């Protein structure tokens, strides 16, 4: 499989000012990870361990202080349309309708090559993909949290990205909505064959959705502790998996890492 993202010895330190004293805070160190085309990878770890920092680095929102990050063999110098991001808090613009929120992304990527009608069709297709055709004229404050997150996913997918980067996309949703969206996400990923990198703190979600789960050690100066290969067959069915011994083993491995090896003393 072709490598789409290569992360080599990446570290991230921030300049911080605390009590008027300048200091350095090392968030990440020595991260090396390859992500292959079509693969689903989860980043899991305790809160504050720098999983979102790593995702932002891949997105190009921040630059690493050391190491090399490549996407498609080229250095990641900033955000690009081949790497779409779904934010934790949906980040829809409240003054635009669902349609216009998605259209904004479509326009940016395809306006140079396609006509108005095609752009509008792309927007509608993206909303249809997440099952929200009926809500395209609504404003974000008029729809539920789950629907907002779907629009966020539609916005990301509408750019036809090579990689979908998701920062705890379902973290703020209730358990039933979350399960529903996880199932839909699996279908969408299977249909579009997109690569996905997802930050999560939910063990079940990580196992269910990923081919590999990357476990980060506790911060500060977090790094990759272990990587779990999830060999479960696709398509995956959450009901059948509930009694699957392999699913249980994966779960147990993650739990062991999170709650034994990396148990937070202070937490």
């Amino acid at each position: 499989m072709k490598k789409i993202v290569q992360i080599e010895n990446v570290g991230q330190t921030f300049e911080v000012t605390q009590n008027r004293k300048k200091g350095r805070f090392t968030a990440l160190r020595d991260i090396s990870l390859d992500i292959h085309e079509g693969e689903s990878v989860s980043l899991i770890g305790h809160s504050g361990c720098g999983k979102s920092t790593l995702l932002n680095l891949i997105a190009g929102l921040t630059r690493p202080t050391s190491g090399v990050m490549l996407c498609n063999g080229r250095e990641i110098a900033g955000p690009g349309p081949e790497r779409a991001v779904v934010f934790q808090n949906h980040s829809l613009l409240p003054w635009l309708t669902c349609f216009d929120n998605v259209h904004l992304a479509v326009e940016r990527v395809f306006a140079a090559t396609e006509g108005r009608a095609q752009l509008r069709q792309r927007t509608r297709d993206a909303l249809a993909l997440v099952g929200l055709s009926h809500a395209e004229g609504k404003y974000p404050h008029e729809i539920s949290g789950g629907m907002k997150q779907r629009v966020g996913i539609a916005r990301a997918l509408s750019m036809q990205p090579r990689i979908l980067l998701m920062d705890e996309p379902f973290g703020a949703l209730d358990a039933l909505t979350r399960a529903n969206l996880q199932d839909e996400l699996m279908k969408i990923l299977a249909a579009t064959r997109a690569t996905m990198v997802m930050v999560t703190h939910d063990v079940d979600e990580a196992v269910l959705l990923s081919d590999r789960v990357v476990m980060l050690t506790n911060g500060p100066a977090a790094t990759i502790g272990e990587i779990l290969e999830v060999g479960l067959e696709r398509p995956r069915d959450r009901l059948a998996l509930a009694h699957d011994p392999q699913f249980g083993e994966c779960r147990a491995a993650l739990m062991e890492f999170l709650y034994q090896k990396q148990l937070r003393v202070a937490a």
Partner: protein
Amino acid sequence: MSVAATMNRSGSAGADEAPTVVPMEAKKPEKAAGAPVSVAGGSDGGGRAGEWLRALVRAVLPPLLGVALLIGVWHVATLGGGGIPSPGKTWDAAVVLFSDPFYREGPNDQGIGWNVLESLKRVGIGFGIAALIGIPAGFLLGRFALLARMMNPVISLLRPVSPLAWLPIGLLVFQRADPAATWTIFICSIWPMILNTAQGVTRVPQDYLNVARVLNLSEWKVFTKILFPAVLPYMLTGIRLSIGTAWLVIVAAEMLTGGVGIGFWVWDEWNNLKVEHIIIAIFVIGIVGLILEQMLMLVARRFSYENR
């Protein structure tokens, strides 16, 4: 504000309007107090009408009592004679005055309506130019930190200066009274607009800016789709503060510059020793200021996204 309330924006605005309109009706307390009583007698038994009436009374009664208290104190204070005219005498003068607010007899003797309109025109021009310059300047200051660090000491230095101190400069530069008054309005309206717009720009949620970066939006799109709508509520606050100050300052400026205008009119009536006219002018200035404020509040509510 709840989702339901914002979804039906026109409805909620209408409901909120009732209490805000009340102070403007303060001019006719006797009539307003008399009318509901007779209506209540007529529609006895109409449950919904009664409910509506009670709500109206609840909304209207306290402000009316406040105004009545003001007029009462005023009346008592003028019982012992002195220079201040009593409420009754002022009312009589107002009836005469407002029977023909738009007469013209020479440049220095015009109806109160013309004077108010002339002042509003000056405020409009001065304020309009200030908005044209102040709002873009605010955007620049908010977007470029270096510019903000450059200009902040200058603004801090000039902002507390009374706008009237700028009047002689205006007279010197423009050589005429009228543009000098407009210039004073310009100077006093520009600071709140610059500062509020700049603050709005720096407070645009990082999430929205991240969206802009991830989508790789052009500067123009960032401005029209993200910055402008996000800053609009702050901008409107600046505009509201500016209009309020401008309306305060115009009266003083016109007293000094003369010509036609409500401020000049006050001064003229003082020279004529018609004190009841000055009191009427105070009410008129207050009511016009209130209307300006409420109009902008209505606009601001329309564009407020923070409560959603």
